């Protein structure tokens, strides 16, 4: 089946720093989503981005489908950005999401 790899696994930054999270996938996809899992375990939708670039405030994402990767950018980090960020994809022909192992982001004040 499709493989989804996220890097780095852990990232520790000071408040105000910028970060880039990467998601590589091994096959063509219909769907790619980025989620933030907050400390209470809720998965918060950040982006639905099977291709192209989107921005939402301090966050932006880019997916290059032909090269099978996606990047999530967080600028001017805040402590509330802490948590685990997941990338998830739907392989072509499938309806389910396959998740990466996540990047744990810690923003220190």
């Amino acid at each position: 089946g499709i493989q989804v790899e996220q890097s780095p696994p852990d990232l520790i930054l000071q408040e105000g720093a910028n970060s880039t999270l990467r998601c590589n996938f091994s096959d063509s996809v219909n769907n790619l989503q980025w989620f933030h899992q907050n400390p209470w375990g809720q998965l918060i939708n950040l982006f639905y981005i099977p291709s192209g670039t989107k921005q939402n405030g301090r966050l932006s994402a880019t997916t290059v489908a032909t090269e099978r990767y996606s990047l999530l950018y967080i600028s001017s980090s805040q402590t509330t950005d802490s948590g685990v960020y997941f990338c998830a994809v739907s392989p072509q022909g499938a309806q389910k999401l396959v998740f990466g192992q996540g990047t744990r982001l810690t923003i220190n004040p």
Partner: protein
Amino acid sequence: GAGVSQSPSNKVTEKGKDVELRCDPISGHTALYWYRQSLGQGLEFLIYFQGNSAPDKSGLPSDRFSAERTGGSVSTLTIQRTQQEDSAVYLCASRPGYTSYNEQFFGPGTRLTVL
């Protein structure tokens, strides 16, 4: 509007007991999914319902797991004869439309602990 809701939020049970977990999807969403998040396995797909079609059960880990969706809306995930390895957070998601070219939205999850 209201998001995906799940109940109970926490469930503690003894090994060997049966449990039922409930999911209310976003109104109007035709697709409903169950996933499981555990320390050793990460987030994994369990089962998918789409309208009146036969569900995709390919992710269910054993025949102790079953799910149904009544009236195209509410879903119940049942685990029979629970084992300690069933301890995990069970997440429900729903999606509009009939293809995977749409966003999935997740509920808050049910944390299951099997003693």
